[in-house]
C-alpha cells in the first residue's frame, strides 16, 4: 500500500475519541506523548492526515494551556465539537491523573518520614535542573533577534528580581510586544524574512 489511506467513512464517535486518547495516554507511559498520539491517530486509526495532525500541533502550541491537552482538545473538536473535546480530554487525563492523585495521597500521608524525605531531597534537586533547562531549550530560536532577547531579559529581571506577578506582566508586556511584531509588508524582521 503506497497510496495514502483514505479518511474513514464515518468519523469517530465520542466513545472512539475517549478510547483513542486513553490508548495514547497508556502507550506514552515514560514519555513521547506527541509521537504516540501521531502514531495512533494518523498511522493506526487513520482519523486524520498527517498535515491535519501537524496543524493541530501548531494550534495547540500557540494557544494557552498544556500542549498535549490542547492537542487532545483539537482532535476531539475536529470531529465532534465541544462534546468531542471533553471526551478526548477525559480519555487523555483519566488514568494519569488518577495515578498521580494516588501518589499525592501517599505523599501527604507519609512525606514526613525521614527515609522518604531523604529520597525526595535528591529527586527535587534533579527536578530543579529540569526546570532550569526549559528556558535554554527554546533560547536558540531567538538568538538572531536582539529585540526578542531584550524582551526576554526584561521579563526575566522583572519577575526574578522585582517580583512582578505574571498576570500584570503579561497584560502589559504582551500588547507592547504584539505592536512591535505586528506584521508589516515593508518591514519584516526575524527568521520569517522572505528570501529574495
Amino acid at each position: 500500500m503506497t497510496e495514502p489511506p483514505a479518511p474513514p467513512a464515518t468519523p469517530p464517535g465520542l466513545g472512539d475519541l475517549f478510547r483513542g486518547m486513553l490508548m495514547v495516554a497508556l502507550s506514552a507511559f515514560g514519555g513521547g506523548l506527541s509521537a504516540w498520539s501521531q502514531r495512533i491517530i494518523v498511522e493506526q486509526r487513520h482519523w486524520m492526515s498527517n498535515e491535519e495532525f501537524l496543524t493541530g500541533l501548531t494550534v495547540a502550541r500557540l494557544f494557552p494551556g498544556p500542549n498535549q491537552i490542547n492537542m487532545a482538545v483539537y482532535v476531539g473538536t475536529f470531529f465532534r465539537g465541544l462534546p468531542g473535546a471533553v471526551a478526548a480530554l477525559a480519555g487523555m487525563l483519566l488514568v494519569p491523573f488518577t495515578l498521580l492523585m494516588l501518589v499525592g495521597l501517599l505523599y501527604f500521608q507519609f512525606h514526613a518520614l525521614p527515609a522518604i524525605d531523604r529520597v525526595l531531597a535528591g529527586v527535587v534537586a534533579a527536578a530543579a535542573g529540569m526546570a532550569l533547562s526549559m528556558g535554554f531549550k527554546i533560547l536558540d530560536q531567538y538568538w538572531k533577534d536582539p529585540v526578542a532577547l531584550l524582551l526576554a531579559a526584561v521579563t526575566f529581571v522583572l519577575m526574578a528580581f522585582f517580583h512582578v506577578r505574571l498576570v500584570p506582566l503579561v497584560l502589559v508586556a504582551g500588547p507592547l510586544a504584539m505592536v512591535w511584531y505586528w506584521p508589516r509588508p515593508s518591514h519584516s524582521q526575524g527568521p520569517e524574512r522572505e528570501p529574495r
Partner: protein
Amino acid sequence: MRLNDLGHLLQVMGTFLGLSLFSLGGGNTLLTEYHHLSVDEYCWLRPSQFADIYALAEAAPGPSSMIVGLLGMGAGWPEGPGWALLSAYGAEAAILLPSTLLMVVACLSWNRLRDSPWRVAFERGLGPITLGILFAVGVKILQTADTNAGGVVVSLLVCLLMLRTRISPLWFMAVAGGLGAFGLINR
C-alpha cells in the same frame, strides 16, 4: 463547618480559573505563580513541599500541568483526604476549563485565524516573553528546591545533561533519589 470547606474549595477553583488563560508556552510559565499562591499567599504548602510536588508531577507520566491537582490536594488536606481529593479534581478542572474552551473556539475558527495579523503578532510577540518567564521559573524552582551547595551542583549537572543528551529525565531523578537516600544530597 462544611460550608466553610465549600467556600475554601470554591476559592481554590476560582484562583485557578483566573490563571488558566495565562498558561503560555505549554503551561510551565505558571509555576512561579503557583509557588506564590500556594506557599506565600494561602500557605497551603511549605516551600519544601512545593518542591516535592513539582518533582512528583514531573516524574509522573502525563502532562506536567497535573501539578495543579496536587496543589489542590495540598489546599484541601487539612480537611481530610476526601476533601483533599475533591479539591484536587476541582483545581485541575478549573485550570483546564477556560483554556479548553478557548482552544475549541480556536479550532473551529482556525481557517480565518491562520493568516490574521493578530495570530502572527501574538505568536511572535508572546514568544520572547515566554522565554523570559521560563528562565524566571527555572531560577525560582532552583531557589525553592536547593538549600545547599550539593543540591545546586546536582541541579546544574542535570540541566546540562538535559540540554546535551537525550537520556530520559527519569534516570536523573532515580539516580539523584538514590544519592539522597544515602545522604549525599540534603536539604
